[in-house]
Every structure is written in C-alpha cells, then in structure tokens.
C-alpha cells in the first residue's frame, strides 16, 4: 500500500435509491472520502461490462455500482439483472488477473445516508489497501 495513494474511483448510482441515499449522506453532513466520482444512471441495470471495464481500462482503481435493494427496484427488476451481470464480471476480472474486489455492487436505499457513507468509505479503504490498478503493467490487458 502506497502511503499517499489517492485512489481514482468511479461510482454508478441509480437515480431512485442510491443517488438519493448519497444526497442524504450529504445533507446529514456525513464524512465521505473524496475519491469517488459519481455518475448518475436511471437504473443499475444500465450498467454493464462496457461501463465497468472501460472505467478500469482508462485507469480507475475501483468501480462501485449502487442500486436499490432487491425487490425495491423502481423499474421492478433492473437490479436483479445488475446482480447477475456482476457475478459474471467478477469472473472476467479474475481471468484478467485483476483483483475482483476492485469492483463492487452495493444496495443502498434512499433513506440509507449512513450506509452510503460506510459503503464508499470502506470501498475506498479496500482499494487503498489493494493499491493502484495494475492495469498499466498488466501483460494480459
């Protein structure tokens, strides 16, 4: 772990739950580590391997996808698709010798400001422990 390593993280937040949860974290003045760039999407099901892998390809040290809890998806079942795709994505990362922990799918509801802060902070810590993405030096990519 590099001492002054400031990870570059990309976060896809679904409009209805997790983005609102992030707003709540802010309005209740919770401290969140400043490494996550937030990209709003309408549903976590919009996020597929393109969006996750391109972020990693272009230098993200970690990618977080956050959606509504299972059963609460604003579009009924979008988050189930996100969940299935993620399982596959993790396997793809393994085959590329990239740590699967660099990507994370979390369920955060609109009332879970605290949880948002916890998830982002823990994810940031985890990536800081893993170190910068080995992308540039990875022969497989």
């Amino acid at each position, binding site marked *: 772990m590099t001492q002054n390593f400031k990870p570059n993280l990309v976060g896809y937040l679904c409009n209805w739950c997790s983005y609102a949860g992030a707003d709540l974290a802010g309005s209740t003045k919770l*401290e969140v580590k400043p490494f996550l760039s937030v990209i709003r999407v309408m549903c976590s099901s919009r996020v597929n391997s393109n969006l996750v892998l391109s972020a990693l390809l272009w230098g993200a040290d970690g990618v977080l996808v956050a959606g509504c809890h299972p059963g609460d998806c604003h579009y009924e079942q979008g988050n189930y698709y996100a969940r299935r795709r993620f399982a596959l994505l993790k396997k793809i990362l393994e085959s590329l010798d990239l740590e699967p922990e660099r990507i994370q799918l979390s369920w955060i509801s609109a009332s879970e400001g605290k949880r948002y802060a916890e998830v982002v902070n823990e994810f940031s810590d985890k990536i800081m422990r893993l170190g910068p993405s080995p992308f540039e030096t990875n022969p497989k990519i």
Partner: protein
Amino acid sequence: MSVRIGVYVCECGPNIPDKIDIDKVLEDIAPLNNVAAAKRFRLLCSNDGKKYLADEIRKEKLTHLVVAACSPREHEKTFMQVCVEAGLNPYLFQMVNIREQCAWMIPDKAEATRMAAKHIRAGISRVALHGPLSKKELTVNPDVLIIGGGISGIEAALSLASKTRKVAIIERSDSLGGRTGKLSRLLLHQGTDVSVLREKIEKIEKDENISVLTGCEVTDIRGFLGNFEVRIESSGEEAVSRSIVVGAVVVATGCELWDGYDPAVYGAGNIDDVVTAAEFEDMIAAGKILLKNGKPPRSVALIHCVGRKEKGYCSKVCCLYALKFAHHLRDSRAPAEVYEFYSDLCLPEKTDQEYFDGAVKKGVHFLRTENVRVEKRNGHIVVEHGDGAGKKKTLEVDMAVLAPALVPPPGSEKLARMLNIPLDETGFFKEAHAMLDPVAAPIEGVYIAGCASGPKNINESVVQAQAASGKILSTLVPGKTLEPEVKISVINEDLCTGCQTCLSVCFYGAISFQAHKGVSAVNEAICRGCGSCVGSCPSGAISSRHFTYRQLYEEIFEALR
C-alpha cells in the same frame, strides 16, 4: 454552429463557498473548450437567480447550460424550466451536484474543490454531447374496455361512462352481476340491500354510453395506454368476432370458490347435505334451507378455512359470510343449532366484531380447530375436529356448509399473457405496486379491480373499481394528449442482430420483434427509460437517450483525469 456552454456555479448562500474555493474552480474550467461563460451566483434557484440565468442564456447566446449547485433531484426541473423560458432546449442542460455530494460530505476544502472541479468538468464534457430531445404528444382514445361484468366491472362502467367516453363491458357468461348477483342478502349490518346491484344493472342497461357484450371473450389485445386494439369473440354457437379500439382496459374478472379440496376430508359432492357456500346462498335466495329429505336442518356446521392450508392464504370474506349464514339460521322461525369451525376469526373491519358478538348472543357456537374432517358415519354427518390441545372430538349435525378458498377463475393465465401482465404465485393478477398502486397492472393502461387481484369483499371491490376509474379519469382525458417518457431507449437497426435479448429483459413489454426486418424495435409510448435493454444488448445496438455510452464515457474520462 459553435458550441457555447455556460457554466454557472451556485453558492447556495454560505453552503458552498465555505467548503469549496469557487474562484479556483472557475479558473480551472473557464479555459476549457467550448466554455463561453463561467460565473458564480449567490442563489440560482431564487427568482433573481432564475432571471439571471435566463438573461445569461440569451446574452451569451448559450447553446448548452451547466449549473453546479445542489442535487438535481432538488432543482433539475427548475432549471430545465428556465431553459424553456429562455428558448433553450431543456435537455441541453446538465446539473452538477456540488452541494450534497461535495461541499457537504468532504470536510477538506482542497479535496472538496478538487472533486467539485472534476464533476463540473465531467458535466461540461457530457453536456456537449446532449441531444435536443423533445416531448412527444400522443393522442389518446379515451374509451375503456372492462373485462368482467361482476360488481367491480359494473361499478367501473358506471363511474367511467360519459358522452365523451364510451365503455364496453365484456362478460363471458350470459348476464351481468357475477357472484354478487347470486346473493340474495348482503351483510345486513352494513345497511345495504342487494337491490343496490339490480339498480346498478338497470342504470347500465339504460346508459347509451355503455355497451354490454355478454357471452363474449377477449381473444387478442395489442397496444398501449391510449391505444389498445382488442379482438372480441362470442363464446356461443354463432362465432361473432369484432375489433374495438380503447384507451384503457380494466380487468375485473373476479374469482371463484375453490373446488379442488379432498372430498374424503370435506365430504362435499360425496355426502348429501354437505354443501358449499354458493349452494347455501342459493338456498337462501330460494327462501328455503332444506335437507335432501325435504326437512329443515336442526343443526348446521359451518366449516371455515377449507383450503386455507392448501392454498397458503386466508380468503378474507368467509368469516363474515359464515356469520351472515349463522345470523340467518338463528333468525329463522325454527332456528337451527349453528356450529362454526374456524382456525382464526378474521374480522378486520370496524363493524365486524360487533357482527360476531351479535352471533354469539344469538347462541351460535364457535369452535376453534386446526384440523377438521366432515364424514358420514352411520348415516349421519359427523364433523371431526381437533382442539388446541390435540384432542379429537366429534359432532353430529344435519347439514354442513363449506367455506372454500377464493381462487382465480379459469382463463386468468390466458388473459395475463394476452395483456402481458403478470400473475403472482397465487395465480391472481399482480399489482403494479403492492402498496402504492393496488389497482394498476405493471403495464400502463391496464387496471385491475376487485377479486381479480386477490380475495376481497364487496365494499373493497367497489372501492377498487372506483379507484381504477379515478386513475383512468385522471390520465386519459378526452381531447388531451399523453406525454410519454422522453429519455427512452432507441435501437439502431443496422447494429441489431435480432437476438431479442432486450425483449426478454424489458419488464414493460416495450420492445417487439419486427420479424419482417429481423430486428427489434422500442415502442416509444411504453418505454420507461430504465436502460435494462441497453445494458443487456450484446451488439451495443441500443442506446439510451440522455444516457448514451458516449455521454457516460465523457464522465468517466473526466473522473479519471
């Protein structure tokens, strides 16, 4: 034409300048490509602020607008409206959240400034790729098709029909009224007489805006809210078939009494004088409660919960109608002894307990049991019941009435497929949202009222029919247009391979396969813009308006710079 992006940073009073060095941010972004103006303002959502923005759009001849302020969930609509008023397409606008998600959550000013600048740069890159989307207007057909002519269908028809809105009720039996029509008495403690139903049917017959098609069924439905094409065929000997166009469909197909219970356990059909609740209602209607031998029963057992365990749900109405039977039996000139066998007494409405207490006062016996059997022994009907301690007891009675579970009627699956709406695991139609949208199906334009969505009593069914009407009256206004979602998915036919993966993930049935072209297409009137199809397309043929890959890539690039 040159791109001129205006970037305005809102101070939100002290909220943002306290935590973010706005001047530094402006310095950072002003020199960027296409940025025509980079300014700060005290409070953009105020009347002054909105006027300022409108003036800036015109003065600076902006082609795109970025506002960095609070969450878009707060004021995106506000600023989109400012764009409209200033003559700028509201979708050529991006709002960047630097309050809730930067200033308020990052205590270190340098870090908060860094992140704010990053997000604003992302917003600037992104907005340059926005398209000038426009709202569509769909003219709608305000007419309504009601499937099912029971109490719910009848109520919905009466609530909806008017000179400007025609209603068609389609009923597969040969008369209106449904199961309520077979009752001669409603729950009297509610002060309502069953003649109410007859009055309603008469009103329908006189109403020239309501057409009643009995002996008919729906055989095909295509379309969407405001525009459904329905094929109707008569189920009789003369195969008459016709098509009508309506704007909305109300599913009011009701329920029926379950007849799949084990006759060895419950005896109906097997043993004389063991009857179902429906048969008992017929006896009440005929004015005579008699055994097969023509004599009145001296003792009657009312067996609740027939099928509760097997079906896995409580049918809600049986305890009440069993009490109705009990009152009826005790009120007669030669009252029979009445024994009610139940597992739980379900009395959820504010007057139900009183009705029960009244039955107790009249000498009705209530026996709680988990296991009940109705058998014939030595020529007598015997009810065997286990008490709470597990001890088995028996009771001899002249007659037994079974209260079976309420189940979906045959044809529900076919109708569900036709309408593209789901059934839940009990086989009843599934609501759009169990809590907040109980009378709508997940497909827009299709509504569900009454027992079609699950067991309920007459009052509730009537309320649901009125509720479905409320939704239709509010949405489908004659002469008004509908504005479907703007930020929808679009399929590029050149890239589409016709794999239909998108079809399989669309919950709303908004995608159809065009066989003659070999590609899929999105119905713009139905698409909700979730992007599930975009995410699932293996060819990248689908894009999401306002959330295109290129737009999102711009945000990623800036995030990682």
